[in-house]
């Protein structure tokens, strides 16, 4: 397990270093993910230890968002009068953009599989 954790943290560190050097707005962990993906492509797949730790972490991905989500219930008073606008943007905005992207994905991949490309 320890080896797996070390590999993941090492790639995160590489990612953080890379974005700091490039002054990129992309977060370090995302850059680390791309670097690990590159390393896996070169090496030909993850070791058993990295695979196990990764599966364990990904299984609880949504838990790691929880403390930030609780923050929505503790906003400053100045924001609270905009609650209806915020909720409408989250619910209606997400609904229409999901419909749009689903429709787009269906159209574009349909074309692709019928062999027009």
């Amino acid at each position: 397990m320890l080896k797996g954790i070390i590999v993941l943290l090492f790639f995160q560190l590489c990612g953080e270093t890379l974005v700091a050097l490039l002054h990129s707005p992309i977060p370090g962990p995302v850059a680390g993910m791309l670097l690990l993906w590159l390393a896996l492509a070169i090496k030909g797949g993850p070791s058993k230890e990295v695979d196990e730790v990764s599966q364990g972490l990904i299984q609880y991905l949504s838990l790691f968002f929880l403390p930030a989500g609780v923050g929505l219930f503790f906003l400053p008073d100045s924001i609270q009068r905009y609650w209806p606008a915020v909720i409408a943007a989250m619910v209606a905005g997400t609904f229409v953009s999901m419909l749009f992207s689903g429709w787009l994905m269906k159209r574009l991949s349909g074309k692709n599989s019928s062999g027009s490309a």
Partner: protein
Amino acid sequence: MHDLIQHLLDFGNSLIHKPLFGLLLTLVVFQASLWFYNACGRRAFVHPVAVSSVTIAALLKFGDIPYREYVQANNLIYFLLGPTTVALAIPLYREFHHIRRLALPVLLTVLLGGIFAAASAVGIAWMMGANEQVLLSLAPKSVTTPIAIGIANNIGALTTLTTGVVVFTGVIGVLLSPVVFYLLQLHDPRAQGVVLGLNAHGVGTARSFELSATNGAFATLAMGLNGAFTALTLPYIVPLF
């Protein structure tokens, strides 16, 4: 006897302000919500993040614990988001043969869908009279939390509002996904993954992995691409308005 009760009350009161309490609160409530989620057949509307965040917020208010104290106690959980993001490279690598075949549709959907997600949120809030700070905080709503916080800082949005909105957008996206898939008759796990990862970032990606490995890999890809694209463009678009 009275002294003893007072002593116990004081001890209990100091205990709930210790970091251990905040961390344990998160884990216990989430585990209970997971049981509940599984007992309900993993229906989207009892999503564990939705159920646990409402429960934790109510308990914090009841126990008179400041949110800042709770967040500090949960730094460890927040930290794990980093290595977990790195770990997503593995499903991405495994499903790459699927992804390559659909590279162009995925890329186009993420580009146009990402713009649409930000524009629709800001547009709706603007029509309902939100101020500039709220509008700015809503713009990165479909991007995964660590990226959204970076963007929020760059464009001068309120970080606490952005993170809360981002997480709840993820939860709402998961709640709405069965309806969206039904309305569009969208059964292809690859397309479902793209819709969840693009609109509901990490929370949607977690849901995708429950549906299938391919679904999860496409969600990871859409989430990563959308995050990178939004992080690179939004700081330059905002000054135009």
